Each structure stands twice: as C-alpha cells, then as structure tokens.
C-alpha cells in the first residue's frame, strides 16, 4: 500500500510535466474561478479555446480518445495524471467544454457514422464548438423519460416543438444533444429518439433562468417548429432511451468530486479560529469540534475513496461503484457546513459578500447548495441508483411502465 506512481505512470507524469512547462506558466496563486464567468467573458473564452487547441494538437485534450481526435489512446489513469499536473499551471479551466466532451461527444462517437464524427469531434475537442445536453424538461426532471418535446417526421425532415430546462451553458453553445418523443402511443421509454442540432438555428429560443442564488447557470430552451434533417438522428428511432443512458453514464463519471466551491472543514476551522462564543474561542468549543470531526471524516473518506478508484484504474480494472457516492456526500456537507458556519457568525451571519466574514464564502455556499443537491441527479435519484445498481435492490413499482405515454396520468 503506497501512493507512488508505477514506473510507467511516473514516466508519463514526467512527459506531461515537461510538455506543460514548455507551454504554460506555473500557477502562482489559486484563484476561485466561476466556470460560468469564463464563458461570459469573451477574453477568457478566447484563452480557453486557444489552450484547448494546443492540448488537442498534442493529444492531451482527451487523453483516452484515439490519436487524431484530441487524444493519444491513453488510459484513464494517464488522464488523471495529466489533470493533476495541469492543475499546477496557470491555464484556463476549460469548463465550457466539459459537458460536450464529457457527455455529448462520447454519445456521438458511440452512435453516429464516420462522416458525422469527422465533422463534429475535432471542432469540439479543439474548443471551436461548444455543446450542451437537452434532456430535462419542466415535466420530466428526475423522471427524464417522461419528457414531452415532440419530434414529428415528414419525409426526411423532423419538426421539433416543446421545451427543455436546467440546461447548463445553453446560451454559449453551438450544438445540443436533444432527446425527443417521437411516438406517444407506446410506453414512455420506447417512444424516444435522440438528435443533435444547431443551437443557432431558427426556432431555438434560449432564456437564462435566474436561480435562487441569484446566478444564472441554467437555461430554459423553447423549440418552435425547428427543422432537423433525419441525418442528425443519433441512434435508431425509438432507441433514444438507450442512447441517453450512454450519455448519463458519462455524466455520473463527470459529476462528482471537486464540487462545492472548495468550501470544507479547513474553511470552517479558519472561521472558528477567529470567532468568540459564549464560552471562549469557537475552535475550543466542544460542539464545534464534534461537527468539524463529523465533516472531516466524510471529506477524508471521500478523498481516500477516490484514491481507491484511482488504484483500480491504475491496475487496469473497472472502478467499483464507490465512485457513485461523491455527490451525495459533497452536496449535503456543503449545505450543512455553510449553515453551521453562519450559526457561528451569529447575527452578523445575515450579511453577504464583502460585508460578511470570509468574503461571504459560507453564505455563497449555502445559497448554491440546494442546486448542487439537485443538479446531475438529485440526492434521492442517486440513492436509488446506489440501491438498484450497486446493491441490486428491485426497482420501485412503475405504474407507467406498460402504459402508452399519452395515457399516463400527469399533473398540471
């Protein structure tokens, strides 16, 4: 048991570091970067695209992908090692490309023909084109397959009508992966079909949603008589759910650790060192110490779980299901730590931003936490996934399972 690289891993790490030293400057200070800022700031976005192109030319943009497609046909462990080394350099985060490269393009690569792949993979991996994922709807959140956006075929052309919601980065995207209902007369999972489309074409109306936190990371998108050629279909007609599962599998691998704005036990301790409570310094208060320890063991447990996952990857094994627990732990911990920190701040805790202790970090964490507990699979859906896919428990009774979609009861 150790934390060392294997000889091959050490060699790759040295190569990656040498290349990074030749193409970027070491990071001096850790700045908190909001991924959405990068997209809304044209200069930052330009830098992000340039860096993405440089990496793609070398094959470091998507290391596990084939040569010529932004990768080197490398191992998942090599991708992790590159990420670790890259994080030490002052380079753009590239979060604008995460959904496209993490979810949409892998789906295109799995289901589309060579001509489509030749057209779309390279511009995406080089940062020239940004993709978003159009699955959730006002009437289909956790129950994604209950979506209602209709695609109707006439000759070789499909007409799309409906709306999507909670779409991250849609306002900055060039293309979208779109899940539609093509047959409402069969049970819900069987009447779906996947497409890709240009987000810039007529009839696509993107409207940012103002969140409870005040930020606008998500969008609602309205489709009005949008025309798509049948050549932009991804997978067979009626097979959309199977295609979507490929995308979602990639999503669960992408969403997870590293979230929560870096707010954790260390920041809570930093605050507790500065505050006085009824019986003395907060850091010496027994109740505060109990809480710190409770959250520390969850953070540390997650960190070492990640190392177990990396060990499996390093040995060429499939990571175990332990990878699926990260977001459940991180999201509620963020909410709880933030709320507790504000309790310690006391009456001054109602302040936000620069008026609050530690630049309002805990207020910000608390305001964003509800979103993290919902996005990319709610806490409840993730528990279902662990129960069903990891523990092998039976699915809940599905009253809509064998019922044609247009006969399924729906709320208002």
């Amino acid at each position, binding site marked *: *048991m*150790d*934390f*060392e*690289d*294997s000889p091959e*891993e050490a060699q790759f790490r040295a190569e990656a570091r040498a290349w990074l030293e030749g193409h970027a400057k070491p990071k001096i200070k850790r700045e908190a970067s909001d991924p959405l800022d990068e997209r809304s700031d044209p200069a930052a976005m330009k830098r992000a695209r340039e860096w993405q192109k440089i990496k793609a030319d070398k094959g470091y943009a998507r290391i596990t992908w084939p040569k010529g497609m932004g990768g080197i046909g490398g191992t998942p*462990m090599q991708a992790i090692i590159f990420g670790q080394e890259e994080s030490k350099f002052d380079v753009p985060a590239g979060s604008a490309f995460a959904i496209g490269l993490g979810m949409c393009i892998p789906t295109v690569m799995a289901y589309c023909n060579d001509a489509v792949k030749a057209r779309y993979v390279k511009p995406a991996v080089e940062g020239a084109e940004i993709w978003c994922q159009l699955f959730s709807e006002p009437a289909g959140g956790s129950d994604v397959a209950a979506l209602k956006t209709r695609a109707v075929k006439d000759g070789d052309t499909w007409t799309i009508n409906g709306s999507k919601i909670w779409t991250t980065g849609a306002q900055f995207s060039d293309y979208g992966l779109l899940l539609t209902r093509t047959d409402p007369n069969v049970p819900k999972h069987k009447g779906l079909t996947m497409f890709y489309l240009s987000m810039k074409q007529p009839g696509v109306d993107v409207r940012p949603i103002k969140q409870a936190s005040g930020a606008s990371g998500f969008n609602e998108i309205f489709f009005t008589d949008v025309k798509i050629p049948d050549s932009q279909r991804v997978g067979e007609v009626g097979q959309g759910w199977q295609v979507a599962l490929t995308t979602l599998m990639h999503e669960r691998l992408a969403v997870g650790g590293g979230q929560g704005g870096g707010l954790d*036990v*260390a920041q809570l*301790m930093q605050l507790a060192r500065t505050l006085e409570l009824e019986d003395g310094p907060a*850091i010496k208060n*027994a109740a505060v*110490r*109990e809480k*710190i*320890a*409770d959250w*520390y*063991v*969850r953070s*540390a*447990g*997650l*960190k*070492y*779980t990640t*190392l*177990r996952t*990396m*060990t*499996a990857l*390093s*040995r060429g094994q499939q990571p175990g299901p*332990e990878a699926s*627990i990260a977001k*459940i*732990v991180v999201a509620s911990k963020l909410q709880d730590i933030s709320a507790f920190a504000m309790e310690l701040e006391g009456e001054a805790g109602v302040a936000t931003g620069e008026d609050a202790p530690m630049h309002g970090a805990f207020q910000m964490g608390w305001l964003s936490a509800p979103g993290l507990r919902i996005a990319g699979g709610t806490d*409840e859906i*993730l*528990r*279902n996934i*662990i*129960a*069903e896919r*990891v*523990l*092998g*428990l*039976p*699915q*809940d*009774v599905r009253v809509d399972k064998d019922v044609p979609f247009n006969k399924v009861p729906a709320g208002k």
Partner: protein
Amino acid sequence: MNFDFSEEQKQIKDQARKFLSEKCSTKTVRALYNGAGGSDAALWRQIAEMGWMGTAIPEEFGGLGLGYLELCVVAEELGRALAPVPFSSTVYLFAEALIAAGSDEQKKRLLPKVASGELIGTFARAEGPGAVLPKTIRATLKGGKLSGTKTAVTDGMEADFAVVLARGSDDAGERGLQLALVDLKAKGVERRAIGSLDPSRPAADIAFEGANAEALGKLGEGWQNAERVLQHAAVLTAFEQVGGADVCLAMAKDYAMQRYAFGRPIASFQAIKHKLADMYVNNELARSNAYYGAWALSTGARELPLAAAAARVSATQAFDYAAKENIQTHGGIGFTWEADCHFYYKRSRQLGLALGPQRAWKDKLVGELERSNA
C-alpha cells in the same frame, strides 16, 4: 497509485473468511449469549493454530512478522464473524503495548506466548464513568506494587496479564503516569465479572491491592504510550467495525429482498432503499478511512494520530448506523432474541466504547488538525 491491499494480503483475508465461516457462525455467538457469556476457548485455540495472534509480532519474538496490513485484513474478518475471542485485547492492545513500550527482556518473555495463543492479555485505563484523563488516573505503581481499581476491562476475567495505566510518582498530570505490567493471577488482584452490553465480549472490574507489578516503559511516558497503543488499536478495530457494518448491510438487504409487504418486496420501497444506500455510503467512507489508517500504521507515518482518529470515528459511525438500521429494516422480528440482529447492535456499541467514545476521538482528531494547520 497503490491504495489497496496486495494479492497476498487478499489471500490471507480469503483464508481467514473461509476459516471463520467454518469455525465461527452466529451459532457460536448465540451459544455464549444463551450460556454464561464470555469467549469461545475452542475457537481461540484454533485461531492460535492458524498463528493469527503473531501476525504483526516480529519473528524474533515468536511472531510471523508479516505486518500490520496483514493484521488489518484478519481484523476485518474477525469483525465480520463477530468472533467471540479475546483477540483485540490480547493482540491490538496488550501486544502493541509491549511492542511500543516494553524492554527487550519483557518482549522476549511475553510476546512469544502471545503469538502462540498461550497468553491472554488486556489493557486497563478507565477507573469509572466519564472521560479518561491524566487527572482521573488514581491507580498507583510504587516500589513494584500496583494499587487501585480499573473498571470495565474487556476480557478482564480471562486475561493472564494486563497492562495498566497507573501513577508511578506523585507528580500531577501526565508527568506522573506510567504503564504497569501485571500478572493477573498474582496475589493482591481481585477480579469481578460485570455485566457486558455484548455478552460475547465480557468485561471485569479489577481491584489491585499491592499486587506485584513491573514498569512498562518510562515514568512520565505512560500517557503517551497509552495513546500510541490506542491509535494502533483504533486502526485495527476500525477494520473489525467495517467488517461488522458490511454484514449488517448484507443482512438488511437479504431480508428486504425476501420480505413482502403490501404485495411487493420491501426492498422496492424507497424508504428502505435510501436507508440501505446511506448504509453503503457510510460503510464505503469508513472503509476508505480505515485504509488510510492502515497505511499510516504500517508505515509508521507521522499522520498516524489523525489517520487513526478518523478511522475510529468513521468506522464507529458506520457500524452504529448499520447495526441499528439493520434491526429497523427487519421490523419486529429484528428485535427478537432469536434473530441475529442484536448481536451486531451490541457489538457495534461494545467496539464503539471500548477504546474510548467518539467524543474523545473527535477532540483528538480536531487537535491533530489544529496542529497540522498551525
């Protein structure tokens, strides 16, 4: 990255599981519950034949000299099996105290007997309810004579020897503390069996009245030595706790799959699924923390105090939750004497208290964080 046990270590674990599945079912535990309680002497002898007590004891002292990682995998299996033997008292505490603080002569004299299973040992700190602190230790070691009372000493009736935290001088606080090594069959030792939350892990109150005893380690280092031993035991016990917690999850799952209510398996209700998913999350976090503790223990890393406290807190929380929610998942039948659920419920608390409660370990954990950030 190699944050896992080796193939050889996993083989030891598999062998241990196979051995215990044949020699130690819950029937073994139940027999003790239905009788007078205590340990299973036949199982102890068989475990001794396997050489498990000597897993981490150096060869020069009669052990196998394998190491702590090997002892961790054995501990997990003992925890899974609820093995009713004085293994933790003898191996994680008594032997570790000898290794940490004993002279060469003391080690040569006693460790081979631990390794062969001839000697049962234990470790005694608490003198009453509440926190164990330097100021609460009143037992004295003076002129080779031990006096005072220790309470709730696990395996205290069966043990041949004990390591006792005592006051070796009149100095206050830590400076006066010293570990004492005492033969429990000697004159001046009075033992009384006390009721134990887990009858398969018995306990005793022990009164010393001028009993012959020898110093184990230096005067003034008793508290630090005891803390060191507790850190080692915390990591090893965390593996027992993780093993027990995993069995609780498996039991709850099996029952929920076969128990039908309202026309379907209760495992299909989200109230049950989410409970089991939470058990799984807690167990995985506890396992990962225990692995880090194992790494720190096996390499003698300076992170050991933090790693041991985290392993301890995480594993205690996981086993407590899994044991109580396993009963809840079973419903009324889970609360009966005939069901096995209560064995785990009781063992989870026994293990959670015997090395000191969560409160104490959480305080140590945060103390270590304060030091590392200072």
